């Protein structure tokens, strides 16, 4: 009876018995994440937007901010280096993503079809992903070194002349793209490899019974089934590639000349070489808007075709 009374009392006035922190446990558990989001994402973003409409002068103990409307945006639209760096960023993102997806898909198909030692090969392929980009960039910087780099050494060994990998404006950008391909292809490979291994076997058995060729099976069975994962990989790689900074910064600082200035590098130069934080924020904001618009359109138009049908 005493127990029933206690239960009844609990049901009658739960607020008096359950402590406040337990009633708000859900909020308490997510609170650290919300605080981190506000402090490290929302406030900096809002500050950057505010800066984008301002002229910033650094002063002791802070900065002097003068509202200048859309001047920074107008300046960015007229600035040749902003246009040039946007073009280089687009070229970088398209080229490296395309190559990485093609190579990643090729490797995934190869290993999925029972190549010997695929366990070892898969483990080796993970190494570039886990290496810090700065370490990767330094490693390749020394490999590309024209006088004592291993790449030119090997070329010379087979009778070919040395190449100025990072000094020739016609080559440097592609040489750095190769580094990105080396590091990011395993990412595409891993996702696509996992997707291929999880594909249903029935369509393949049916196709085999029908006597379909390997190419025909790939085109009509594998590729359509892979498209949802492929779509995600393309989106992730495109956005990541568009934000490239570390590799170019470490290897050539955007050179030779400005031939490898990407948008992120331009933002860096404006912010931390010229200390023009307002202008850098405006370029950064425009870049962010472009990426968000692209991502939204991509998800709505491209990914929507492969998403699960809505429940009726």
């Amino acid at each position, binding site marked *: 009876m005493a127990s029933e009374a206690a239960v009844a009392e609990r049901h009658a006035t739960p607020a008096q018995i359950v402590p406040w922190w337990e009633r708000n446990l859900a909020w308490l558990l997510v609170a650290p994440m919300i605080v981190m989001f506000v402090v490290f994402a929302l406030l900096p973003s809002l500050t950057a937007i505010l800066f984008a409409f301002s002229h910033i002068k650094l002063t002791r103990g802070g900065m002097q901010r003068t509202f200048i409307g859309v001047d920074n945006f107008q300046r960015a639209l007229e600035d040749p280096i902003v246009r040039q760096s946007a073009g280089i960023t687009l070229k970088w993102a398209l080229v490296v993503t395309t190559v990485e997806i093609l190579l990643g898909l090729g490797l995934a198909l190869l290993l999925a079809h029972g190549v010997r030692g695929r366990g070892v090969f898969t483990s080796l392929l993970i190494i570039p992903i886990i290496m810090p980009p700065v370490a990767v960039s330094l490693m390749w910087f020394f490999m590309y070194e024209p006088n004592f780099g291993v790449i030119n050494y090997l070329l010379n060994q087979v009778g070919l002349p040395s190449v100025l990998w990072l000094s020739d404006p016609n080559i440097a950008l592609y040489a750095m793209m190769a580094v990105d391909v080396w590091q990011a292809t395993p990412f595409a490979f891993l996702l696509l490899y996992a997707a291929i291994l999880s594909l249903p076997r029935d369509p393949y058995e049916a196709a085999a019974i029908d006597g379909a060729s390997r190419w025909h099976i790939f085109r009509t069975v594998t590729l359509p089934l892979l498209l949802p994962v492929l779509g995600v990989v393309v989106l992730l790689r495109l956005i990541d590639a568009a934000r490239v900074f570390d590799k170019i910064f470490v290897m050539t600082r955007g050179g*030779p*000349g*400005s031939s490898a200035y990407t948008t992120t590098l331009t933002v860096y130069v404006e912010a931390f070489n010229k200390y023009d934080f307002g202008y850098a924020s405006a370029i950064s904001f425009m870049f962010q808007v472009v990426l968000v618009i692209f991502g939204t359109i991509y998800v709505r138009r491209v990914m929507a075709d492969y998403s699960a049908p809505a429940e009726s």
Partner: protein
Amino acid sequence: MGNAANDSTVTSAAILDRRALLKGAAAGAAATAVGAASKRSAFAAPAFLQGASFVLACTSDDAPKIQPLLDDYQKANNVTIQVEQAPYNDIQAKIITNLTQGTGAYDVISMDDPWIPQFAGGDFIMNIGELMDKRGITADPDFVPELLALGDFPPGSGLRGLPWVGNVQVFAWRTDVLKDLGLEAPPKSWDDVLAYAQKITEEKGASGVYGIGLRGVAGNPAATSFLPVLRGYGTDLFDENWEPQLETDAAMQAITTQLALAKVAPPGVESVGHPENGRNMSQGLIAQSADIWPDQLLQIYDPELSKVVGMVDIGAEPAQDGVKPANMTGNWLLGIAEGSANADPALDFILWFTAAEQQKRLLLDQNIPATRISVLEDADAVAKFPFLPGLLAAGRNAVPRPRTEHYNAVEAIYGRYVAEAIAGQISGEEAMTQANKEIRDLMVREGVLD
């Protein structure tokens, strides 16, 4: 009811479990915090036994070189010095961010002399001249006056820093190569330099000796290699009213010469920076360079590092007829962050660190050029580094980069355009015209020009 009771019991048990878990976690966190605190207090010395403590910010190139001196100072004075280091561009950005935000993260700051106008103009650093006045001391006249004056900004307002690295850009040439080709040393004008460079590359390029070395990386490197050429043609980045001078005839001639020189430099000049240019000289790859600094000279004269010991001489930067030749400073100074809570121990340290004894030690042990006359004339030092009298003469004849708080941005602008021209992206004329326009726009935005 029974069901309700059961439900309630289950819920209650779950609540108890969760509570117990959360309480346990909280207790664990508290115990960890208490443990950490007690551990700290167990090992920390009582406050009255602890000496002063301050933070020194410097480049990661300098940090290992000055560490032996810091160790000695800490031991002798019961002082703790924490060194914050990063590469040149990064430490500059970190220092500026910290000083403007008033974080108090740094006490002593090692500053490149072009930073002084921005740091002093923005009151980012203390007027250590005033601190010295309060102690009744003045700057030692043993400092090279021209180098000491770099810390006085705006001129006459008091010292903001004391020089500790006597960097002066010099023109260096290979005596053996010039003699071998019958060329009179040193070349006097930029016309001479170009003619010599073309001849050397033509005759010795195949054997791996090129006529000139310069830097082509965008920003500070390309700018620093170009400025002596520009000045050698009798103009500068600005006139006395801060009007940019890159669209003048002299500037056009200077960029034409620089691009012609780049063509006879070792292949890959587009990605040559400060270390590469010094290495090219010390390894015998280049026979002339107008962009050699003392840290490189010390390598060039080091038998363990250099292939050209005794074959390199230095002098003033070349200049066209009628133009007074001059060298360029690139000194490093030690200052104190405005608002530092450790100004007194910081000043003690700076005075000790820039004293002749330490300067000599840095020179002989770490190849860091001194800023004091007595050290540059010291018999032991001159015996080891015969170029020191020449370096002192260059320092006495040195001119700083334009003393504007916007120099970082100016350098980033013209340094990029010069690099683009060297890389063949644009013509020299376009580079000067566009750089001039951008620099002028900058000076207008900053309220310097109308």
